[in-house]
């Protein structure tokens, strides 16, 4: 086999390339667009920008970065979902939004009511997020709970606890002014985008593509039985995936609390649907083992710019909820269909 390819390798210069009919070429293009989700999303972003660009005040650095800031937390949670879903066996983190709410209350208590220095409080918040994610991970990976039932249960556990700890009232006026630091701007772009989102995207990319852990994660997600025979630490890999999602929730809680200067017990409520929608739209397959950081980031941009356009046109947020639900169904169907059609996992 390898010999024949070597033998024919120098030949092509003498033989003309096989002619393709336009239809075949279109088919190959279509395949490329469906297999490489980034291309589809990039096209989508260009269309959205071009369409809403006709409205005054849309295509400006200030407005678009504002829209990104509003979707920053969701982008972070979507990266968490990416890592969790890759780990396989139908894993998904339904509790991410509730963890944000709980972490937001942790920041409210530590920075606001107990007057800890802001950086210590922020670290404590992220630590709390890690702990909550680690609890999910421990139950799902080591004890063997199905991920859906663990995160469904912890979703309501944290949601209810977050409402209880400060009796549903937000903690706002007690928060120190330092909290607003992340909400400042540099050249019209929010500091939180540059100081939180960008580094985390890069770190996640490095984690998934340039570390042993990342390779293990894809391996475990693709086939965990084969991974066990290859002596990969399956449970440990899964555990860290859930803990990572908790870390993202902690970071999201810090940015959302600093953005609104208010620690709210319902801060994370609408975030889960968006995060999961973005992950699925970004081409992450729910069966595990497949998904890219680039897809998730582009999907975040697409949803943020789309939301921005709808907001500019004064579309009610209720309709945006419906649009997200439809988008989730549509992209899930697209994933299933293109996976079956083209055999990508």
């Amino acid at each position, binding site marked *: 086999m390898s010999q024949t390819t070597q033998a024919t390798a120098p030949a092509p210069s003498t033989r003309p390339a096989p002619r393709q009919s336009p239809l075949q070429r279109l088919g190959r293009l279509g395949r490329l667009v469906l297999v490489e989700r980034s291309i589809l999303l990039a096209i989508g972003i260009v269309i959205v920008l071009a369409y809403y660009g006709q409205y005054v005040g849309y295509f400006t650095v200030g407005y678009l970065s504002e829209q990104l800031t509003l979707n920053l937390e969701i982008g972070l949670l979507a990266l968490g979902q990416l890592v969790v879903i890759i780990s*396989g*066996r*139908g894993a*998904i983190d*339904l509790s991410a939004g509730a963890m944000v709410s709980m972490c937001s209350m942790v920041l409210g208590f530590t920075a606001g009511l107990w007057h800890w220095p802001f950086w210590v409080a922020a670290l404590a918040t992220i630590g709390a997020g890690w702990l909550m994610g680690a609890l999910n991970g421990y*139950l799902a990976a080591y*004890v*063997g*709970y*199905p991920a*859906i*039932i*663990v995160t*469904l*249960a*912890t*979703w*309501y*556990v944290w*949601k*209810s*606890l977050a*409402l*209880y700890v400060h*009796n*549903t009232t937000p903690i706002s006026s007690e928060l120190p002014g330092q909290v607003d630091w992340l909400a400042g701007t540099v050249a019209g772009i929010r500091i939180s985008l540059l100081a939180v989102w960008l580094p985390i995207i890069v770190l996640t990319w490095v984690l998934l593509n340039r570390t042993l852990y990342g390779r293990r994660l894809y391996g475990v997600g693709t*086939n*965990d*039985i084969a991974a066990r025979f290859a002596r990969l630490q399956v449970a440990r890999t899964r555990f860290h995936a859930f803990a990572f999602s908790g870390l993202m929730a902690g970071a999201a809680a810090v940015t959302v609390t600093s953005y609104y200067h208010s620690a709210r017990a319902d801060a994370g409520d609408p975030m889960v*649907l968006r995060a*999961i*929608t973005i992950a*699925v739209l970004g081409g992450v397959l*729910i*069966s*595990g083992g497949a998904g890219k950081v680039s897809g998730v980031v582009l999907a975040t941009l697409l949803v943020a710019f789309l939301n921005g356009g709808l907001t500019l046109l004064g579309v009610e947020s*209720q*309709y945006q*909820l*419906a649009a*997200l*639900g*439809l988008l*989730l*169904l549509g992209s*899930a*169907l697209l994933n*299933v269909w293109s996976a*079956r059609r083209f055999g990508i996992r």
Partner: protein
Amino acid sequence: MTATDVRPHPGQQRAEGTARRSFAYGNEVTLLGILAVAWVALSLAYPTFHEVGNIQNVLSSIAMVAIVGVGMTMVILTGGIDVSVGSGLAVCAVIVAKYVLSGGSVVVAVALGVLVGALLGAVNGAIVAFGRVAPIITTFATLNLFRFVSLQIFENQQVNGIPPTLSWFGPTGRTLGVPNAFLVAVLLTVVAWWYLKSYSTGRHLFAIGSNRDTALFAGVRVARREFAVYVVTGVLVGLASTVAVGSGGVVQPNIGTGFELQVIAAVVIGGTSILGGRGSALCTLLGALLVGTLRSALVTMGAPGLLTDFFLGVFILAAVAVDLVRQKRRSHR
């Protein structure tokens, strides 16, 4: 579909004589034991607990959970899950409420609720069974879509002054002192138990949940069965909505939020395996009773209402832990 069924689990080894062994399982006995202990302990500690009025309240409050739990048991048996039942309940309830408000009759109101529920279930079922999208993704999306639909029909305000047309289903409708809605739940449970035990299509649900591919090769019409269980769940959600509207008065736009958690709690506390392939409708009824007892006990003991979901979540985790231990023990045998 997700490859969640790689792990061999006990359902596969119990292929023959499962119908008989489902009773020898001991789940029903264990649950009844826990229920009895809980009731005796609570009655001794709080004399108000075993008053007839409180028992009637518990029974009527769990009726909706138990009714939808029958469908949810079937869905979870096939290895699926339906988290959209709470929003589906809101859609059905607002439509039924508005119809009753306009002076409709009982029969048509029930038929309307059931029909709308079936339609919503068919949406879920079609996407899961024929579109092959993971059940959790599908129903999570429809959870939000149905909520949107219900808010549109509510027009963002509560429905007031509903006449007690459907009071037969409500908390005040009783036969021999037992709430009618609870009797309906018992009847449905027995029917479902009989169906799951004695009909080949019922047995197919266990086969699908144990191993979908094997069931497919054995000639089970998997997609059709999967579609059917979501439609059945939808129908039962429609029926439950008549219970919700039953007493008349007011229906709030937030009706049904968190309802899915109660239903899923009842199913898994009843010992139905969330991995699919193992479970029983009778156990779900007992699970619903246990959930109702827990909620009533929390109120009696004066626990803050905000923490109800907290305890429910912890309860689910504990119940699944018991199931996991049992499975591990059996697979080591």
